[in-house]
């Protein structure tokens, strides 16, 4: 069994070494700090996809500390950056909402290829491991073989899937899934939806339609609307969060593919702007490759100087 911290770190191993080295270089190569020193630090932070705005905040913090003579080693810079990132990530945290009286309904949304279907499968597996009963709804009727993909996941982790025909009405499948969730009295209903670019008004309109159907059956649902963001995405993730937030009240974030070299730093930028907590991190394609998001571990992993976990 892999420990959470190790798995988390392993996923982020590329990040910390690169960043840490950049911070170290500032110390080994510069006697007196000037604009170009800050440029160098800025580049290091930008390289983690933290975005221009968060980066400038961190640089401002560093500048202030430097002017107060508080910076003596590269560790000091890391501490300042970590503190700021922790502050951003630790605000508005809360556990995943649960519905004590009926099924907890989770709605998965996001742009094309972000990892919604895979995260749906992994999340179902995790809940099942926790002893919960789960039902999946294949509401992506749009992309070729999307239904088959979720059915494969269902078979693999032994969780039932409600699905319809390719090209059929996604809201109708959501309706069937709600009915089935009631009849089966499951603990969780996870609804996978088609990927869509938030610029496509017509496709975005499908989401409120699905929401209406869900609420007809469970007035309080969905208990979480989870925006799935690919961790290798740059600043566009900020726009994704804004626009999906408008279309369907996003309440939670999952960031995927952090086993890659992407740092997922854009989630910090998202958190700086929105109140929804980050609940999950995707670290691979297998059922067990989903971890709860821990802001402290994340900030530590991103800046830690530990040698990479093999």
């Amino acid at each position, binding site marked *: 069994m892999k420990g959470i911290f190790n798995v988390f770190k392993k996923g982020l191993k590329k990040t910390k070494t690169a960043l840490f080295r950049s911070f170290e270089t500032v110390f080994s190569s510069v006697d007196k700090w000037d604009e170009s020193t800050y440029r160098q630090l800025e580049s290091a932070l930008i390289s983690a996809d933290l975005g221009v705005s968060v980066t400038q905040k961190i640089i401002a913090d560093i500048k202030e500390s430097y002017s107060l003579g508080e910076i003596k080693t590269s560790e000091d810079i890391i501490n300042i950056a970590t503190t700021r990132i922790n502050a951003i990530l630790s605000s508005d945290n809360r556990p995943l909402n649960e519905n004590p009286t009926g099924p907890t309904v989770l709605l998965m949304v996001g742009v094309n290829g972000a990892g919604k279907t895979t995260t749906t499968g992994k999340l179902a597996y995790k809940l099942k491991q926790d002893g919960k009963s789960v039902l999946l709804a294949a509401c992506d009727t749009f*992309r070729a073989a999307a239904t*088959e993909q979720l059915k494969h996941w269902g078979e693999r982790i032994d969780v039932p899937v409600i699905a319809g025909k390719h090209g059929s009405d996604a809201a109708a499948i959501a309706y069937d899934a709600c009915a089935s969730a009631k009849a089966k009295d499951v603990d969780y209903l996870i609804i996978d939806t088609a990927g869509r670019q938030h610029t496509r008004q017509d496709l975005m309109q499908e989401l409120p339609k699905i929401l209406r159907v869900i609420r007809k059956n469970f007035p309080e649902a969905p208990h979480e609307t989870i925006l799935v963001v690919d961790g290798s995405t740059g600043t566009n993730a900020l726009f994704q969060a804004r626009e999906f937030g408008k279309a369907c009240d996003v309440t939670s974030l999952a960031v995927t593919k952090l086993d890659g070299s992407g740092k997922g730093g854009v989630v910090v930028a998202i958190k700086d702007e929105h109140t929804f907590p980050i609940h999950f991190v995707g670290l691979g394609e297998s059922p067990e490759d989903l971890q709860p998001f821990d802001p402290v571990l994340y900030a530590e992993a991103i800046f830690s100087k530990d040698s990479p976990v093999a």
Partner: protein
Amino acid sequence: MFNNLSDALANTFKTITGKSVLTENNVKEAMEQVRLALLSADVHYDTVNDFVGEVTRQCLGEKVLKSVKPSEQVVKVVHEELTRLMGTEEAEVDVSGKPAIIMMVGLHGAGKTTTCAKLANFYKNQKKKVLLAACDVYRPAAIDQLEALGESINVPVFSDRSTPDVVQIAQNAINTAKSEGQDIVILDMAGRLQIDQDMVQELIRVKERFQPGEILLTADAALGQEAVSVATHFDKALNISGIVLTKLDGDARGGAALSMRKVTGKPIKFITSGEKVTDLEKFRPEGMASRILGMGDIVQLV
């Protein structure tokens, strides 16, 4: 923050209108806006630094310093330099082999499978006979996906669900294409991380065995700073022949495209902007430069 570089520059120069000549400092201020605009568009920071250095040199020349509308001159210089970096001539696609082999590689979810179908449709419309080959044995329903897409455009799909041996599948697909007289075989490879040694080795084996005329790195236009690592690794391992930039129907600026082009020197050959099989176009550097700068159609401006 300004979303649009022209606005940002206009604002920078507003403070100095009335003065007859621009100074070096004014240009520096303008370059700071250029730098921020490119970083916000996800251009890699190294690429940004090089670019800004080059453009600063050009802007310090007579033409900009003495111009009546310096902000427009700066925009023009920036845009021209960006277009130049994106590649000036149209990149050819090598479909000369018998059969020609096109291999699609890239990160998970980049758009490889969909682009395979789009390319098949593109060449089918040029009266070529195309075979799609399902070489992704990992992702759940990857084969179903390619088969469904093939059916929708009436292009045959080779698949073999009985073996996980990707080289063998590709071999059988190519043999089939030969015996059936197909002109082009398009290999849909599984998504993989560029840092995943084993999975990259699989690609190298396929490449070495079949020497595809085209190895196209498929990349999401919304990629962040990691685009450089992705492009560099895939290119080092496979000597890619070009890049396909996907999902341009979203609103990502696509600055990653510039960095990928810069670090690999490989042309962007196609762009895709939708999920329909017809949503594929040849790449246009000028349009991409405008997009990265967030300024619609530049031509009207200058």
